[in-house]
């Protein structure tokens, strides 16, 4: 009953006109960036981070969350109609979704993607609602040692799942942590790594770093080669799957939902991993695996449900522990901090209207997304005809404006350009930016908890190993660090390693 009362309270917040508008803007922009290749939810969220300052914390965070789960819906449209993933979590949808479109079944593919996403999204919200309060009560007992070890685990899982060399990913995580430490030491107020530049005393901003590494670097990368797009010209009137398609899709949607949700909760996990895991699972369970890659609807239904469920699951570690499990959630943490809020175990008790308002807005947002993505799919398909040479100057414009507005300081625009060039070069030599950004956000928290734990234990480092939760996290992290040394596990890692943030 408590939960029902809380949901009712949350709906009261979510249904306020200003929050409804924020939710609509969020899911609309989310669908838009999901549909458009070359700009993903990370870029869009960092772009709009300063805009959220103009409103209430509820409206700002509802909008940011809407962009994330909205992009999961939109990404499938591009995958199915153009065979280019609109965002990374929809890469796997290209395999069977586009084949279905070529066979004249684009409507059914889009329909099952949207309906599966709706089901998975709704499940994730209900599960979030039920799990979060329990986990938050449990997390109150966490001390600095547990937080430190959890963050270490999150970073190690992300580096383990990042494409390419693990040494490079770990190096990037360290670089991110160091960048996060630039500025005044929070304990001694001593300037660190500031090179006597006044602009660096407050540290480097999250928005210019993310916009540079993801927005500008992506544009530079795309300018190297022409992006060829061939939109499938098909009748999109038959969006409701037929009975046989429903029968084939029901179990994959259910499995994808559960799998995606739990993979989303794990630190370092996310929508991309879950969509690939769901695809692999469906192929393995299928009696006719040879149909996969040739237009099997299960190959669309499972992964699309999984990536949406993971998007919902990813909110759990952020809202209950205050630890972002991936880059997108790190940006959302930035939004909380900008508004003077600290997500974590106390958020639910100290700020229940905000917590339940966000959760309830996800119900509303999911319903909006179903309308945006089924009846209006033709409009999004038209948008895909927008050529990249028109699109990229607009992305640049929004990036500049977003970064400048975040601080009203032109220095941040320089930082964005510098990180854009760095991100472009990093991509050239196989260094992934995702571990850098997550460590950049976690760096100050990691240091704070490490130093607190060491001071509390009077320098006894065994405190990290004598506390069960901390020890479990560190042992698991160590196992993942050692795993690539074993050839069999190295091959497995190569299969699941993904570009989480494109």
């Amino acid at each position, binding site marked *: 009953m408590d939960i029902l009362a809380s949901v009712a309270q949350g709906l009261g917040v979510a249904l306020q006109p200003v929050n409804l508008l924020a939710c609509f803007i969020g899911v609309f922009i989310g669908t838009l960036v999901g549909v458009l290749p070359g700009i993903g939810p990370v870029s869009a969220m960092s772009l709009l981070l300063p805009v959220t300052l103009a409103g209430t914390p509820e409206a700002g965070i509802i909008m940011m969350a809407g962009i994330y789960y909205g992009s999961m819906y939109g990404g499938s449209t591009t995958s199915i109609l153009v065979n280019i993933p609109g965002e990374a979590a929809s890469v796997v949808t290209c395999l069977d979704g586009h084949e279905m479109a070529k066979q004249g079944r684009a409507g059914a593919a889009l329909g099952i993607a949207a309906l599966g996403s709706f089901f998975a999204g709704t499940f994730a919200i209900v599960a979030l609602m039920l799990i979060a309060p329990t986990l938050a009560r449990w997390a109150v007992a966490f001390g600095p040692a547990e937080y430190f070890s959890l963050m270490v685990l999150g970073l190690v899982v992300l580096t383990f799942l990042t494409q390419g060399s693990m040494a490079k990913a770990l*190096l990037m995580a360290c670089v991110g942590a160091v960048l996060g430490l630039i500025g005044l030491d929070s304990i001694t107020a001593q300037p660190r790594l500031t090179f006597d530049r006044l602009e660096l005393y407050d540290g480097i901003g999250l928005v210019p770093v993310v916009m540079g590494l993801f927005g500008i670097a992506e544009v530079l990368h795309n300018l190297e*080669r022409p992006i060829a797009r061939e939109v499938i010209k098909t009748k999109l009137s038959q969006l409701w799957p037929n009975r046989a398609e429903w029968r084939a899709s029901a179990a994959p949607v259910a499995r994808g939902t559960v799998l995606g949700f739990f993979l989303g909760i794990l630190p370092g996990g996310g929508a991309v991993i879950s969509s690939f895991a769901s695809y692999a699972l469906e192929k393995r369970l299928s009696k006719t695996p040879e149909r996969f890659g040739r237009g099997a609807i299960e190959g669309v239904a499972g992964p699309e449900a999984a990536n949406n469920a993971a998007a919902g699951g990813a909110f759990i570690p952020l809202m209950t522990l205050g630890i972002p499990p991936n880059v997108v959630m790190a940006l959302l943490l930035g939004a909380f901090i900008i508004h003077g809020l600290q997500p974590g175990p106390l958020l639910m008790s100290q700020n229940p209207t905000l917590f339940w308002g966000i959760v309830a807005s996800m119900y509303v947002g999911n319903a909006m997304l179903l309308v945006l993505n089924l009846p209006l799919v033709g409009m999004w398909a038209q948008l895909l005809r927008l050529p990249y040479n028109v699109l990229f100057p607009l992305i640049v414009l929004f990036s500049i404006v977003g970064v400048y507005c975040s601080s009203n300081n032109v220095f941040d625009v320089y930082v964005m350009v510098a990180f854009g060039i760095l991100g*472009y070069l990093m991509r050239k030599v196989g260094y992934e930016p995702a571990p850098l950004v997550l460590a950049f956000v976690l760096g100050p928290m990691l*240091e704070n908890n490490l*130093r607190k734990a060491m*001071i509390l234990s009077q320098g006894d480092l065994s405190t990290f190993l004598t506390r069960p939760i901390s020890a479990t996290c560190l042992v698991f992290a160590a196992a993942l660090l050692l795993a690539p040394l074993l050839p069999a596990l190295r091959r497995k890692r190569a299969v699941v390693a993904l570009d989480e943030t494109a």
Partner: protein
Amino acid sequence: MNAPSSERRIVLGSAELWAALLWLAVSVLVAWAGWDLGIGTAAAPGSGFLPFWTGLLMCGFSLAVLWSTLTTAGPSIASLWSGARWGNVIFMIVSLVVYVALFETLGFLLATIPLLIVLLRGVDPVPWRTAVPLAMLSTFAVWWVLKRLLLIQLPAGVFGIG
């Protein structure tokens, strides 16, 4: 005698090698900066504690990457850009740097409209009749939303326009 020198040339031209060396230099700098700030003790870690140890970890990972570039042949610097339209990339970077340099002097409107026209015309040229209105409309729309709706201050430049 020729074979080893040719192999040596391939290794020296390796993009990964130079990247690893660069990161190694950065790592040493970070560790040194941490040392300089003061590591403190285990019971009272100083400001340089985490930078120092992270710098050392970075050294280790850089050396691991360096070792892998020496043992396996990676792509050369030239091959990374072969067939790529790298002129577009340089054009874009130069345009952005010039734009940022002039941003506060000219103001948002006077700096942004030319930037957009340059980008629309400079890479896979968009016709003038599309490029100019698109640049002007999008810039004015953004300016109006930020300045009038969200009341966010944008630089007006020395001419006070915007």
